[in-house]
């Protein structure tokens, strides 16, 4: 056999990852379509759904993430407000605008996005670990042998629960972040709480944008994590790989969705946002 030419090797070096990426994109798309179809099949009136699964997932995804989200968002709220006050007092010398601007940002972005990042870590890794280990121990094949579609049975309830709970936790996380920020501004910089907690800059569209972001993150996390879990091969390495990929993939999905929706909203409303 002759050595492949430089061109051929270069083509292969580019072609193989490109092909793998194209295949992964197609598979991710198939999981998304499968989940949506599964949600409709399971949750339409009279649809067949695993009993109690939705409630259990609401608890696992929502309640069990509450402390995690509250702690992380509380601390980041304090830090952000601290840095913001430092800068505002240095550059503008007036802290009366800090609170209203902060609330606008928390509602339209920081609340849902940081909650989404935290849930991508916790929930994304959890779903991928669970489905990945079911895959490598042949439990998914066993489900199929009983005539059950694994995506309907496992991912549909997680998908619905994740959307509901990401929205709920974004509201809670945003509130904690805002409160922690207000406390910091008051204690460290003497900002009057009455000036700080002023919602006059927040418009309905900010809330709509924030909730839309939360819903999209909630939808993206189980789809990306489920996709990674379903791809797990081998044994413990496979599950470890799937979990790792799920954390990175769903975190990045949150950032990308945030960027797309933020730019879209800015284009829609311009400086009026």
């Amino acid at each position, binding site marked *: 056999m002759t050595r492949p030419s430089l061109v051929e090797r270069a083509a292969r070096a580019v072609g193989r990852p490109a092909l793998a990426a194209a295949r992964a994109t197609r598979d991710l798309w198939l999981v998304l379509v499968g989940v949506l179809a599964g949600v409709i099949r399971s949750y339409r009136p009279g649809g067949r759904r695993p009993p109690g699964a939705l409630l259990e997932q609401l608890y696992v995804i929502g309640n069990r993430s509450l402390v995690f989200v509250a702690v992380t968002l509380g601390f980041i709220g304090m830090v952000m407000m601290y840095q913001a006050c430092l800068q505002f007092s240095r550059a503008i010398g007036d802290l009366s605008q800090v609170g209203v601007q902060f609330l606008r940002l928390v509602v339209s972005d920081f609340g849902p996005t940081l909650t989404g990042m935290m849930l991508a870590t916790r929930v994304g890794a959890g779903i991928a670990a669970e489905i990945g280990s*079911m895959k490598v*121990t*042949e*439990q998914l*094949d*066993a*489900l*199929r*042998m*009983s*005539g*059950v*579609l694994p995506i309907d049975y496992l991912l549909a309830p997680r998908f619905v629960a994740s959307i509901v709970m990401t929205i709920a936790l974004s509201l809670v996380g945003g509130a904690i972040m805002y409160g922690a920020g207000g406390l910091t501004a008051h204690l460290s910089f003497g900002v009057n709480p009455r000036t700080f907690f002023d919602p006059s800059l927040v418009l309905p569209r900010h809330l709509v944008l924030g909730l839309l972001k939360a819903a999209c993150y909630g939808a993206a996390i189980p789809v990306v994590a489920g996709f990674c879990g379903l791809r797990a091969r081998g044994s413990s390495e496979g599950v470890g790989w799937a979990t790792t990929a799920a954390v990175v993939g769903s975190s990045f999905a949150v950032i990308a969705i945030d960027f797309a929706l933020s730019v879209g909203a800015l284009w829609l409303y311009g400086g009026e946002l």
Partner: protein
Amino acid sequence: MSGPTELAVELDDVGVELGGAALLTGVTLAIARGARVGIIGPAAAGKSLLVKVMAGLIPPTTGRLRLDGVDVTGWTEARLAPVRARIGMLFQNYALYDFLTVAGNVGFPLAQRGELPDAIAPKVRDRLRAVGLAGSEDKLPSQLSGGMKKRAGIARATIAAPDLVLYDEPTAGLDPVTTSKVYDLLRADHDASGATAIAVSSDVAGLCTFVDEVIFVYQGRLAYRGPTATLAEAPDARVRQFVSGALDGPLVG
């Protein structure tokens, strides 16, 4: 639903490729209804893959799969569901659902076809007693030993009175006494139901106490098929070496 032929499983020139590697090549075989067939062969020869193809879990890249005379090649999961309802399968790693109790696992196939809990419970109890797991209904799979997991898996595979049972490594990792018990159980099940039984095992001696016929798979190909009684005198030297465990011979690797 009765097919036009007496064949339970029919593979016609089946090949499976995964990621560019040929894992099964040109497998043609037919297994009659009610037969007891063992599949043996070295590690990674494609034995487990072969039974997964038979269950419709892995679609063949080339060739056809017929179950009870019906060509099911390329069927969707939804179309396969009623066919699979008539197949029971014991998985190599037990594949017990770790979120369900033993009773929940064993009753799962029945629950999925819409039977009510009140109807399922007595059947599960009977089946668990038959496999020697009476009293373990409320345990979780993680609380069972390897042999108990195998038996729970067998109970789940056979509870819905399937026409075809696929056993992937029913005795791997079990001690000799438990192994004998498991084969006794398989034999009793077969005598009672008359279902077609196909078992994959690396334990040739144990397997031969259960099956009437043996298929030898080697490097993704069906290399030999013959009755259990004459296995040690098989014309294929590779089979003789594999069965006897001799170090010298034509087997590679």
